[in-house]
């Protein structure tokens, strides 16, 4: 019959409307069931998979809760337990990066001997394809994926090339974003260090003459999280992550060190960054010339 298609179509729409209406009548609508309330209509939504009716999220007031594995732009880890950058400037991430958007300058000591520490570390976030290879291949857990996706800025060159300062985050920030993986990693790291220690000790015993020298070595730092992979720990960290995210979404700006935070900073900072980038470009050109001269190109 002519017109049934129209009626059916309207019927589907009506069904959705009614479902949403019914949902909204509840004290807490289903779609907000597991979300974190931030007040003033702001919330982090954890949408249930069986959600019926309205499925849309009112971004930017409402945001989705991101899964742990979410990947956006990498960040560098500052090991706050040992007070050092985890990165050793080994360069594996720069080698494996598909669009080659990482470049690293290895640091050197006073005599010009290379040391295992980066002097500069850049990621061109405009080129990064969020593939996460750098994270997968870093042998030192020094680079991880950040969850911060609100990175819009006005200019690409001064602002989207992140330097080490902008990339570096403390270990706790990572632990909060990636609680499960963090827990497993810490456990593994603790085990590795113990093994290493045991090996060292075995060596020390075997070579009794060198025992004194071996003992004089600075002892490995004690592992931090003894609890390891216990789920309660993971849950606690997850809660912390949510609190952090909540604090950030609440507009309480300075709490999370992240590229976005600095990108959103005042004009003065932007100018300072521009100056830094000019300097960076000048240095890069110089080094390129030098390399070419060395390579005889």
């Amino acid at each position: 019959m002519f017109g049934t298609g129209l009626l059916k179509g309207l019927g589907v729409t009506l069904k959705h409307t009614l479902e949403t209406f019914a949902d909204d009548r509840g004290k807490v609508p289903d779609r907000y069931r597991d979300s974190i309330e931030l007040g003033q209509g702001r919330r982090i939504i954890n949408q249930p998979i069986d959600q019926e009716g309205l499925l849309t999220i009112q971004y930017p007031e409402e945001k989705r809760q991101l899964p742990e594995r979410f990947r956006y732009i990498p960040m560098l880890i500052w090991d706050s337990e040992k007070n050092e950058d985890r990165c050793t400037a080994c360069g594996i991430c720069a080698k494996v990066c598909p669009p080659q958007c990482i470049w690293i300058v290895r640091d050197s000591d006073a005599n010009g001997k290379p040391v295992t520490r980066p002097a500069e570390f850049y990621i061109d976030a405009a080129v990064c394809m969020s593939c996460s290879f750098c994270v997968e291949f870093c042998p030192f857990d020094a680079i991880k994926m950040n969850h911060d996706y609100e990175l819009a800025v006005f200019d690409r060159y001064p602002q989207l090339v992140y330097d080490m300062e902008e990339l570096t985050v403390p270990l706790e920030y990572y632990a909060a974003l990636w609680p499960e993986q963090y827990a497993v990693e810490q456990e593994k790291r603790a085990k590795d260090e113990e093994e290493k220690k045991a090996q060292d000790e075995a060596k020390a015993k075997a070579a009794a003459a060198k025992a004194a020298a071996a003992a004089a070595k600075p002892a490995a730092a004690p592992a931090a999280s003894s609890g390891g992979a216990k789920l309660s720990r993971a849950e606690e960290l997850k809660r912390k992550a949510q609190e952090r995210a909540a604090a950030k979404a609440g507009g309480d700006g300075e709490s999370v060190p992240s590229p976005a935070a600095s990108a959103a900073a005042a004009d003065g900072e932007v100018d300072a960054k521009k100056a830094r980038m000019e300097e960076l470009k000048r240095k890069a050109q110089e080094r390129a010339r030098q390399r070419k001269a060395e390579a005889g190109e």
Partner: protein
Amino acid sequence: MSATLVAEAPDQTQTGTLADVLPGVLGTTSDDTDKAYLVAADKILDALAYLRDKEGYDFLSSVTCVDYQGYNGKQRKGISERFDVVYHLYSTKKGGGHVVLHAPIPSNDTIASATSLFPGANLQEREVYDLYGIKFEGHPNLRRILLWDGFNGHPMRKDWKEAYFDEDSKPFRSRHPKGSYEFHEDKLPWGKNATYPAGWDPDTWQAPVAYVPVSQAPKHLGEAHLDTESIVVNLGPHHPSTHGVFRMLTRIEGETILALEPEMGYLHRNHEKIGERNTYLMNMPFTDRLDYLNSMSNNWGYALAVEKLTGIEVPERAEYIRVIMAEFTRFVNHTWSIGFILNDLGALQTPALYAIEEREMILDLFEEVSGARLMCNYLRFGGVVRDLTAGWLTKARYLANDRLPRALDELDRMLTDNEILMARGRGVGYLPAEDLISLSVSGPMIRAAGVAYDIRKAEPYGVYDRFDFEIPTLPHSDIYDRYYIRLLEARQSVRILQQALADIPGGETVGFGDYASATLSQGFGSIMGGKGGYNLRPPEGEAYARVESPKGELGFYIASDGKPNPWRYHVRSPCYINLNALGPMSVGYKLADAVVILGAIDIVLGEVDR
């Protein structure tokens, strides 16, 4: 439903091996990997005709070219020609594997066009001409296709360098340890990076008068008393109906299409050249960007090709995960496609939004395991990058057993006997099955024309041979059937999903060791049992692997010279090749129908233009 096709060895003929009977055979390449027949270039048409008429290889899947300049491997011993034109043929009748022909030709030489035997070679030969500069004699319309006429050189040649050239292969030395990276904007400020072919002046150049072959037109009867005139109309490139930046150059009379020519390349980024600069692993995230609705199946096609080349085994659980991801992807793609066919019919947005509701749920699941909704980058050679998360299977089972079938039922109720779909879809865009096959069309398009050809059955890969599912076919080969076949296929996908989710070995177990991190896993990036770190070096040889992507046959052709970077990396894109049929399908229908005819081919420009 026709009988299941059974795979059989491709080089067995009625009269012995192909090498003995194929006209013009010069020899075969080594058969560690894919075996290819070297055929004299001037005999290529005879060889193709023989394969088509005597051996039943009726589907010219892929035509491409390899530039062997500077190649040092053993394979090219004694062959002095610089280029090889490579043909991959399949049989839609008997299923099974392929026959590969290599026709060596020297630089700047010509070769006979295969379009007289296989009209489907049309777009692919134009691509080879565009990117390699090989001329095909007898091609009806040999113009550049992806690049514009003022482009200098043929970029896939080994000696061609891009404007921002760094080095021949990654990793680039400038990134570490001195970080002497130069900003591209400083290297080549705007305006200084363009070169033109000799004798070319950009200021006086004018786009050539639209080429719209009237030859496609049905015999034009005309009405003597009406003084009509045919005009050329451009649909696109900026038009919502073109699903991206794509142009349909049409010659119409009144509203009737006399001829139609697809014009593309607006999104061209020379994916294949990037692929040759990359290492094998680096290509994986790039394949996400081909058909960006279906990154999981793109990953699979590529992983399959590399696994074939290197002989990497995939563990059981990873195989199941791959099937699950690929079928979820197919569901997403088909509902999306249904929604947008309706969109193109004028039912703006409403059906499309209902059709893609479940897509959000599926993308949530993808994001949970892989970290991204669209650019999943989830597969690796020999497996997938990480195991499923805790609780993932429960959610997936809820979708597969409950929500997805319900959504399909609703779409079916809402749309299948909809008057508009009937009135505008029935009998529109008809092309008989034989024409579609000779035009190298694959996927739902040929199944809507009654050809039960599906790679999952014809040449099963992964663990598809373990599932109980059917290849739906419909007889009419029109817009309506192309809509409905997608619904039917989505139902089969759900059926496969239900089985795979029930049978997956290991079930809900989650190993905490299964993280993508070099310090935690068994090896670099090799989480679910695979090998292949970032410096994987496959043995010398070549491989072509294909999957039944939601849009058709997605193939990856890889030639290796034993180095960490592929010598040749070619994507056989179903979207691109299916466009062969766009012109012939549209002729004789109204201009408004062309929009839906394009919509029902279901293209994604990321894959068309590459």
